[in-house]
């Protein structure tokens, strides 16, 4: 097993156990579906069994006989009840603009077609099973290459430019070694263990929604928009979230339907989607295709990078991740060409899934680098070193900090890379073929405007209020540490209120922005309190100074509300935040600089010579992400990220029936994720790094840094073990048998 305890190094806070940990290990932590509401009715969805067509009729006779049935809502009674949602990419809230129950049209498999309401969950489910829906089906397009799929250039979709520089043809002509290959990544679903639940309760014309959310202020405004009611009539309660990974970051159609159901019945409604329904009611990571060409001269300097990609989206919505924004800028290269295409098919709208652009887009690039290195007879780490840069090649902007090679050096040392025999299939242990591979990882450092209120009592108790979210990331603890340090009190005296739209707004818990953005605003509020107490900027605050300050002021508590806007933010950023919108700034989106966190990932695979069973006995990663507020929770996030990466490389794929465009393995028996028995040594190294520009505290995000490079590191290790380049994920044993 790996060494566990992260030690405090330079520019890191002290490792601290979760302040909410006790509530979690005793079962007391209240997740959204754990809240009791008086005498609720239960909702169960009937979902579409076709992916494209029209509903021609309902037969409710059998369902109507089920004891306890209260009502069944369909488009026949609900048309117009839900207002048209605005898509998040168009400046709105919704993860899809598809409005179920607004008409007979079916846009995708698993679309909600009826809401069954009953006195008990069991009655609602039984009646839902007995609702007969007849449809006129049309041939759906499932994915790339399906008849009826339509392709558009992503450059036409709002906001995207294909980054490019130099002359790609000249660059390829100048190369001594080139790779020209096609790659593919599969559909994946987030599958947080917590199901998608919604409980709605009305008090008069005020609605309270208990729903796990990564953006409570966004959900509040999005639901208000869909119901046509004022946003201040809606409150979202979500103090604990049982995993999200992007799936709870935009408004799904379920919430407005549950709210309307509760209003119709005049009593609270509880809705718990089944695991299967979550696959089509929420979002997913769409499958991608890539054509990548990479050239390097005899010295190993890149001369050309061409990255063309295709992404799947739904018919009405242009969801786009466009990871070429990152791949075009990751290494020094004078000639870069990129182009992204969107392919519209008859599926639900995809959405953010942990490291949305980087996971599918770094896979081809980091595999191709391994291949070019081999052609040049260079170690793959050395090839990356020769193309490391402090200036991105597209606009020539400087990186604020970049510790990529330091991460490679530390991870290589920990892994024992120097003992690697470079030739493929040259390391063997009995029946097991051993392969060692590595890859870079990176994730943009973005921030968004945030607000918070901090209260300090004379006796040293502190309360922080901000509608940020802890998805398991450790936000409760890290934010308490920031306030405690700033106000000179023990962490145990700080209470943190998060996950409630009645609190001052914070941005989406997505894009790895929470710690940097929300710590920044909390520090700002704390500094205002320090100023009131007469403590100058650099002085330590101790109980004596605090009490003296309070006595001078003659008050029992001091509270400060603060607003923070990151570098590059527009003045209206805070207004937008109050309207439930997060405006992320950073990464490659700035005009004067580029900011990313980096890491290096090393994987050992063992592949059985006869059965081709693939085991992963070792994964080592080294990561640098500016100031680390809490090394203990940061370590957990990065370790979890590496295991996500192994899962993505070897296990996960949502399978589809190409004829009907329906998901096949929409359950935990068939959607493969690793279990305890699949994972062995996972080592995380935190590399100290100081960045004085990203924000006043020097914090970068790291929640999505761990799982980006792993796909390629595993694929490169599989090549090293077997001599086979597998360019289509996931790498399962059948791909090694042929």
């Amino acid at each position, binding site marked *: 097993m790996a060494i566990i305890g992260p030690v405090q190094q330079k520019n890191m806070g002290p490792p601290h156990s979760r302040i909410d940990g006790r509530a979690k290990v005793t079962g007391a932590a209240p997740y959204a579906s754990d809240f009791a509401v008086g005498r609720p009715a239960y909702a169960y969805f009937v979902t579409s069994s076709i992916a494209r067509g029209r509903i021609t009729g309902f037969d409710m006779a059998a369902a109507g006989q089920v004891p306890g049935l209260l009502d069944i809502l369909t488009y026949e009674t609900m048309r117009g009840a839900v207002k048209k949602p605005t898509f998040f990419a168009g400046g709105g809230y919704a993860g899809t603009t598809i409005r179920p129950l607004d008409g007979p049209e079916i846009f995708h498999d698993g679309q909600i077609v009826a809401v069954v309401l009953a006195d008990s969950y069991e009655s609602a489910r039984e009646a839902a099973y007995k609702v007969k829906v007849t449809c006129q089906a049309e041939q759906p397009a499932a994915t790339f290459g399906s008849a009826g799929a339509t392709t558009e250039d992503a450059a036409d979709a709002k906001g995207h430019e294909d980054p490019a520089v130099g002359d790609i043809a000249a660059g390829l002509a100048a190369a001594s070694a080139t790779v020209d290959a096609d790659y593919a990544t599969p559909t994946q679903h987030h599958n947080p263990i917590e199901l998608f639940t919604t409980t709605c309760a009305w008090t008069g014309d005020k609605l309270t929604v208990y729903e796990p959310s990564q953006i409570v202020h966004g959900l509040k405004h999005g639901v208000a928009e869909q119901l046509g009611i004022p946003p201040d009539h809606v409150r979202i309660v979500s103090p604990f979230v049982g995993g999200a990974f992007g799936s709870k970051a935009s408004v799904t159609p379920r919430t407005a339907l549950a709210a309307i159901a509760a209003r119709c019945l005049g009593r609270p409604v509880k809705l718990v989607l089944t695991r299967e329904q979550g696959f089509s009611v929420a979002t997913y990571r769409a499958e991608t295709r890539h054509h990548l060409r990479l050239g390097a001269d005899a010295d190993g300097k890149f001369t050309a990078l061409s990255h063309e990609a295709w992404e799947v989206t739904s018919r009405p919505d242009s969801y786009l991740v466009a990871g070429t924004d990152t791949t075009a800028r990751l290494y020094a290269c004078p000639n870069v060409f990129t182009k992204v295409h969107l392919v519209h098919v008859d599926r639900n709208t995809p959405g953010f899934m942990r490291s949305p652009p980087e996971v599918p887009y770094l896979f081809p690039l980091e595999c191709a680098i391994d291949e070019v290195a081999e052609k040049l007879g260079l170690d793959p780490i050395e090839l990356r070193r020769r193309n490391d840069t402090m200036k991105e090649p597209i606009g020539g902007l400087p990186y604020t900090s970049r510790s990529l090679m330091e991460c490679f050096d530390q991870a290589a040392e920990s892994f024992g890379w120097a003992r690697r025999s470079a030739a493929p299939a040259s390391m063997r242990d009995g029946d097991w073929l051993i392969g060692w591979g590595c890859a870079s990882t990176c994730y943009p450092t973005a921030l968004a405007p945030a607000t918070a209120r901090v209260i300090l009592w004379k006796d040293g108790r502190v309360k922080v209020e901000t509608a940020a979210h802890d998805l398991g990331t450790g936000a409760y603890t890290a934010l308490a540490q920031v306030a405690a340090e700033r106000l000179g009190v023990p962490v145990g005296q700080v209470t943190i209120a998060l996950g409630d739209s009645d609190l001052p707004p914070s941005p989406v818990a997505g894009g790895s922005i929470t710690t940097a953005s929300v710590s920044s605003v909390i520090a700002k509020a704390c500094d205002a309190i320090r100023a009131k107490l007469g403590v100058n900027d650099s002085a330590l605050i101790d109980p004596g100074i605090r009490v003296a300050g309070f006595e001078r002021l003659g008050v029992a508590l001091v509270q400060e509300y603060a607003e923070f806007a990151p570098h590059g933010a527009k003045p209206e950023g805070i207004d937008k935040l109050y309207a439930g919108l997060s405006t992320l700034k950073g990464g490659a989106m700035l005009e004067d600089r580029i900011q990313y966190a980096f890491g290096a990932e090393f994987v050992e695979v063992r592949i059985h010579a006869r059965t081709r069973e693939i085991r992963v006995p070792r994964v080592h990663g080294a990561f640098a992400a500016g100031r680390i507020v809490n090394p203990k929770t940061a370590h957990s*996030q990065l370790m979890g990220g590496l295991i996500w990466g192994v899962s993505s490389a070897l296990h996960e794929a949502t399978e589809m029936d190409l004829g009907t465009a329906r998901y096949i393995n929409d359950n935990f028996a068939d959607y493969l994720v690793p279990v305890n028995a699949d994972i062995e040594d996972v080592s995380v190294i935190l590399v100290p790094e100081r960045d004085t520009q990203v924000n006043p505290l020097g914090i970068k995000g790291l929640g999505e840094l761990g799982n980006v490079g792993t796909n390629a590191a595993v694929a490169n290790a599989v090549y090293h073990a077997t001599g086979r380049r597998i360019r289509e994920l996931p790498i399962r044993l059948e791909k090694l048998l042929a």
Partner: protein
Amino acid sequence: MSAIHVTTKINGDVVDYVCEADETLLDVLRNRLGLTGAKEGCSTGDCGACSVTIDGRLTCSCLVLGAEADGREIGTIEGMAKGDELHPLQRKFLEHAALQCGICTPGILVAAKSLLEHNPKPTETEVRFGLAGNLCRCTGYDKIVRAVMDAAQEMRRA
């Protein structure tokens, strides 16, 4: 449907409740008894988030009917700590950071407690395979194994 009267013991206390014949034990615990520590993750016995013990045997409460608890002894996460004193497994999970979002944690703790009751000195491999029925998506697998091994050692010393 006629309601069924059930007399059972939960975490050592005698409990009486009335449930429907088709209601799962998980729904009874969560919706009727307010014991929301057991979580629903799949309803098919694949994720282990709803783990409880019935007469000492580890069980997915989503696969058992509430009526079947009659005359049995049920153990849930709510019975694991003694008042304010955490069970060694709970303490070690905190120390080793063996939890993130926490939704799988109650089920994993119940499963780990059951594992150690049957095998007080498990090997690392036995822990990995013994807990293979509990999915953690965040994922804290290595830390979970370490915490269980550490707790087992402490419990043997006690």
